[in-house]
């Protein structure tokens, strides 16, 4: 049913989803931009973040600790995966890299299913986030509003790391030309490891922040991964601003279409991606030469 109130509330939902997609896609895109690896396990990282946070929450009852624990766990997982497996794939064709991360995604999903069972788990929103907030023109769930704020802070932190620190400068230089960075005497491998950790953490962080909004299930990462792909294709692979804008656009498309007919939300999302591919194949902010 179309009403203006409906539209506004769906646009808020779209903003929540878009913010999350922006954060997850930033992780995917900086990993690809720096390491040249498309991480098909990125959706699984999102899911693992949710479950790790769930465990911490069950243990401590503290939501902030759950966020911290979930994000840190996924970062450590990312670093471990990079050191143990991904590192051996930098010299191999991109197809091999996709295959191995695809396999890792299956391992993670099935491991979580083995440990937690197939039934969904839920994390309640923290006390301050329960209930609804009166926005003046409508009521909106408080926690969802908070998600936008939390994600915006995380994106801000990511921005500071990428654009205001020495590490970020090296990472951005690495996106331009990793060989050159290497030959300047910077240990590219260590940078790669850190970037993979940060990228994974972005997904894991989104996973636990999102947990009170939707319940957790082992397969939840798959849909997110697909949406993330569309976001980075729209925004331009390797571009941090592109991931943010692409995420926000995708969030709006998905939720506004859902209001009219949920069955078409993916169709519209895909149509947007096709349009971008036809008009501007490198994406909104994609580097000109990379393919």
């Amino acid at each position, binding site marked *: 049913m179309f009403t203006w109130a409906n539209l506004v509330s769906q646009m808020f939902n779209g903003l929540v989803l878009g913010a999350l997609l922006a954060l997850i896609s930033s992780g995917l895109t900086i990993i690809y931009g720096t390491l040249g690896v498309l991480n098909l396990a990125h959706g699984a990282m999102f899911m693992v973040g949710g479950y790790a946070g769930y465990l911490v929450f069950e243990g401590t009852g503290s939501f902030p600790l759950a966020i911290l624990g979930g994000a840190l766990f996924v970062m450590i997982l990312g670093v471990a995966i990079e050191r143990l497996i991904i590192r051996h794939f930098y010299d191999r064709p991109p197809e091999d890299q996709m295959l191995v991360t695809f396999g890792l995604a299956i391992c993670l999903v099935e491991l979580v299913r083995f440990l937690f069972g197939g039934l969904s788990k839920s994390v309640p929103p923290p006390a301050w986030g329960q209930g609804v907030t009166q926005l003046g023109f409508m009521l909106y769930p408080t926690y969802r509003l908070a998600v936008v704020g939390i994600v915006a802070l995380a994106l801000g932190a990511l921005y500071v790391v990428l654009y205001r620190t020495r590490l970020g400068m090296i990472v951005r230089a690495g996106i331009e030309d990793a060989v050159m960075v290497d030959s300047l005497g910077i240990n590219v491998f260590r940078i790669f490891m850190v970037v993979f950790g940060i990228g994974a953490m972005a997904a894991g962080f989104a996973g636990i922040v999102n947990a009170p909004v939707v319940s957790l299930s082992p397969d939840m990462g798959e849909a997110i991964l697909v949406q993330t792909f569309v976001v980075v294709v729209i925004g331009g692979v390797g571009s941090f601003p592109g991931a943010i804008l692409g995420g926000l656009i995708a969030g709006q498309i998905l939720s506004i279409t859902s209001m009219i007919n949920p*069955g078409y939300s993916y169709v519209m999302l895909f149509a947007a991606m096709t349009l971008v591919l036809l008009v501007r194949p490198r994406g909104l902010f994609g580097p000109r030469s990379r393919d």
Partner: protein
Amino acid sequence: MRHPRPLVVEALTALGLILAPYVLPYLGFSPNTVNQILVWGLFGIGFDILFGYTGLLSFGQSALYGTGGFITAYLLTRSGMTSVPLALLIGTIGATLVGLLIGIIALRRTGIYFAMITVAIAEMFFFIENSPMSEWTGGENGLPGVPSPVFELFGLSWKVGTGWSMYGFLAACYFVGIVVALRIVRSPVGAILSAIRDNPLRVAALGHSVALYKLTAFVIASTYAGFAGGLLGVLQGFMPPDAFTFETSGQLVMQTVIGGVGTLFGPLLGAAVWLFLSDFLQQTMGLGATWKLVLGVIFVLLVVFLRHGLIGGFRDLFRLVGYKDLAEVEAEQAPLDVARPAGAPKATPMPARHRERDDFAGPILQASGLTKRYGGLLANSDIEFTVTQGELRGIIGPNGAGKSTFFKMLTCEVPPTSGTITFEGQDITGKGVTDVCQLGLTKSYQVNQLFSRLTVRQNLTIAALADLRGKFRLDLFRNPDSIPGLHERVEHTLDLVDLVARADTIVSALAYGEKRRLEIGLALATSPRLLLLDEPLAGMSPRERVETVSLLKSISRGRTMIVIDHDMDALFELAEWITVLQEGRVLAEGTPDEIKGNAKVREAYLGGVLDE
């Protein structure tokens, strides 16, 4: 391409398919499992042509599998169509057309973009099937009641039942599928697809339309996917909606990798392993849903350690115990030092291909006002350059003079910022490198651009095919041996660049000098009328240089050539006319003697120290 034992593979496949019902039950395979393996195997044949042969990794094959399956099932359950083969045919055609459309969109990008786009498209198809189209597809319930085929011929009637009876039907379908696929991969198109996997840029530079051949591979894969999807419904008597899921695409990719990519039979073997493990781990070991975790770990280990899947593993094992392929034996027996003995007769070069306009008498190449700007950097500025028919032109210039950029513009690899290029009176400015090569202008590269996983002979075949077959041709079932002139062209070029003894060696195993000669050979095999050579002597030993100079001299007869090199002595010996570039401009032009004595040239090279 040589096929010393024709139809052996086909015969062995037929034998295997006939024997399977008598052997597999003893290994614990139920007829239904075997039938599923066949459907996956058939699905995988197309995917292997796309991924294993062409190098395009798609995670979206489920879209086409589901499309073919649901069209077939819809026709048989809702439209009143009774002929199963006809419904299968229509379903397959439907999937092929959808594949054409998806391919046009997805193939706008390569590598990871292609993979991501295919994933997104497949997911969209799943949602379309599930919701907007659910009136036709049954939504989450799928389409039950798909009938089995009945064949009537000369009064005999065969109603396909379940179990081994269904096996007979599916095995026949699989056999047709594999025979067709074997023809395709042995055809000129198959050869070009393998070359695209190795080095798409060079395939394009040799005059093949890479975009259209990739699309061909994608459409072939769609056809197989649609056919297999239709058979899935027929096999199960029910078309399940999960044919459309990402999991289906993922399972196909994993099965193909487990079995071995680029083998056509890999997907079948992979499916057998998958379904066997699924049964074994779930039932016998009692692992339940955890079996997929075991499978995931196995898959990761396989990708890390066994790069060519099980079939590749078996092959390596055979090699370990001393078995060798025929080609390898021949290659090893060939003398390692392949340089031609002094005074041995050298093949005379093939003439350049005929011109379309024999009456054209003007300069073969003319560039005027040619300028290339990269951002703030002016690589080439206002170059005027004319080459007459039959000339051998040398281009020299210090590092950074813009020589390579100049060559790239002449072959239309990069478009000029301004200026025009005319080849035999025809304006080629802004044309693609593929079209220009088809016109008869090509280049050998400064850094080798070869097809490293193919043999020397296969490399030259790819190059020769471009001239003999044109930019794009769909001769999917043609035997390359039947192309007139191909064999002669390849053998002749082999002889010319002195690689006869190495003809069946994989390129990655060649020595550097041999690769350099093959690089020139690739350009030569397209029989260009104008041949550009970008530093043909780079990195060669003094002896190789002498040989290569004499090779260049011999191929320049009846052909126009432009050579860039740093070896000025060699170039002064070769060329009749020299152009000197400096800082993106023409500094001087003249005969070698004039250039040697030119004060400006000496200054450019030696900084004026000889200006006493």
